[in-house]
C-alpha cells in the first residue's frame, strides 16, 4: 500500500465519521465538530492525492495544498461565526440545540 492510498483511505474514514456526526448529533457544538472532522477528511484526501505525483514531478502538486490552506481558513471562519451564533442562541432560548432537536426534559 502506498502512502497516498493509506492517508487517502484514512481521509475517507474521517469523511464518513464527520458526516455522520454532523447529521446525527443534536448539540450544535458537536455538529460543528462533525463538520470540522468532515472537512479534515476532505483535506486529507486532497493532500494525499497531491502526493501521488512522486516519480513524475520533483514535488507534490501544490494546487491541492493551496486549496487545503484556503479550506482550513474558510472552515475556521465559519466555525467562529457558528460558535458565536450558538452562544447567542443559548443565551436567548436556553438551549444549545436547534429548535427541532429540543425535547422535553433534556438540555
Amino acid at each position, binding site marked *: 500500500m502506498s502512502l497516498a492510498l493509506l492517508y487517502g483511505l484514512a481521509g475517507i474514514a474521517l469523511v464518513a465519521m464527520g458526516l455522520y456526526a454532523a447529521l446525527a448529533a443534536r448539540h*450544535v457544538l458537536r455538529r460543528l465538530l462533525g*463538520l470540522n472532522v468532515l472537512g479534515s477528511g476532505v483535506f486529507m484526501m486532497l493532500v494525499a492525492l497531491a502526493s501521488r505525483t512522486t516519480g513524475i514531478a520533483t514535488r507534490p502538486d501544490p494546487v491541492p495544498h493551496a486549496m487545503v490552506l484556503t479550506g482550513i481558513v474558510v472552515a475556521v471562519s465559519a466555525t467562529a*461565526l457558528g460558535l458565536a451564533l450558538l452562544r447567542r*442562541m443559548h443565551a436567548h432560548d436556553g438551549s444549545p440545540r436547534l429548535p427541532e432537536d429540543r425535547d422535553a426534559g433534556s438540555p
Partner: protein
Amino acid sequence: MTGSAALVTVLVVPLAGAVAALLAGRRGAVAAGLLTSALGVAAAFVLAGAVLAGGMQRVAVGGWAVPLGIELRADGLAAAMLLMTAVIGAGIAVYAWRYFGAAGHHDPHDLAAGPPGPAGKAAPASTQWLFWPVWLLAWGALNALYLSGDLFNLYVTLELLGLAAVALVALAGAGAAAAALRYLLLTLLGSMLYILGVELLYAAHQTMDLLQLRERLQPGLSVWLAAALMTTGLLVKTAIFPLHFWLPPAHGSAPAPVSAALSALVVKAGFYLLARLWLDLFGALPGAGVVPALLGALGACAVLWGGVQALRQTRLKAMIAYSTVAQLGYLMIALLLASGAGGAAAGAAGGAMHAGRDPGLPPTGGFVGKFALVEAAVRAGAWWAVAVVLAGSLLAAAFLFHALSRAFADAPADKTSAEVPAAPQLAALALALVAVALAAAGEPLRRLLTVGAAT
C-alpha cells in the same frame, strides 16, 4: 469600455463598495451602498451590451491559462444573471436605505398584521449599518459566482455568499440566531459535499475548469459520484424540496430587505450553479437525462407544496418564504425542459429565473417567465409541466390576493400608510416597474440568454 474591462468592473465594484462602506462607518455606509449600486447597475448593463454584441467575454485572472489559472467568463446566462442581480440589488439598496435608517423601525412588509414574528428584538441599532458592507460582499460573491469558470473558485464564492447570508439573517437579532445557525450548518454541509465532488473531478481529470472538464469528461464511477455529491450539496443550498426546510425560518425571521435579497438572489445562485453543472458539464454523460427528470419532479412537488404552505401562512414574510420554495420549483422544471430541448429552451430556463413573485399575470416579467416556461413545456410535450405551472400560478394568485385583501381591508386604523417611509414604497414601485419592463424587454433578454448557450 471593452468587454473584459466591463467584466472586471462588474466584479470589483461591489467588493470595493464593501471596503468603502466598512471604512465609512455608520454615517457614510449608506452613501457608499447607494453609489455602489448605481455603478454596479451601469457596469452590468455595459457588460450585457458587450456580450450581446461580441459574444462570450473571457478574462484569464493573473494571465495564467487554465488549468493552472482561473478563467472568468461572461456568457449570455451569466450576463443576464448579473443584470438581474444588479437591478434587484439596487432596489434592495433603496429599500434598505430607509429601513435601516429609521430608528425603531417597523416592518412595512408585515402590514398583514399577523402574530409578531419569531425574531423578537432586532440586533442593536449600532450594528445595523453593517448591513451595507455585508450585503455588498454578498453581491460581490454573487457576481464572482456567475462569472467563475473554475470549480474550486466557485466553492470559495459559495462560502463567501453563504457566510454573508448567515450574517444578514443574524441582523434580525438574538431571536433569529437559531435560524441563522441552522442555515450556517446546512450551507457548510452543502459546501463540504460540493468540494468533495470537486476533488473527485480534479483527481480524475487534472483540471477544475468547467469547459476543459467538459472536453475531458470520462464517464465512470468517480464522475457520477462527484455529480451526485455536488448536486446534493447545491440542492441543500438552494432549498429544493424536500431539502427546503431551513428556508422559511431563515427568510421569515430576517429583516425585510434581507429576506428580499435572500429570496430573490441568494438561493438562485445555487440553482444557477446546478443549471451550469447539468447543462454544461454532466449533461454529456450517457444516461444523464434521468437526473434532470428527477430534479424536475422535485420541482413539481416544490411548486405545489410551497404554494399550499404559502396559502396557510398568516405573516406576509412567511408567505413569501414559502412562495420562494415554490418558485425554486419552477426553476427546476425549467432546468429539466432546458436539458431536454437544447439551446433555445435554455432561454426558457433563464426566462423562468426572472419570474417574479407575482402570480404571473400580464403585463409583468413573471408572466413572461412563466409564458416562456409553458411554451417550452408545450414544445417538449411535457403536459404535466404545463399543469403544474398553471396550478402553481393559481395558488400564487390565491395567496397574493389573500395577502392584498388583508393589507387593504384588515389593516388596523392606527397603522396608517403615513408611517411607511417613502423610500421603501418607491423601491417596491421601481421593482414593480422593472417587472413590467422585463415584459417589454423579453425579446432582447431571450436573445442575450442564448449567447454561448452550451448545447
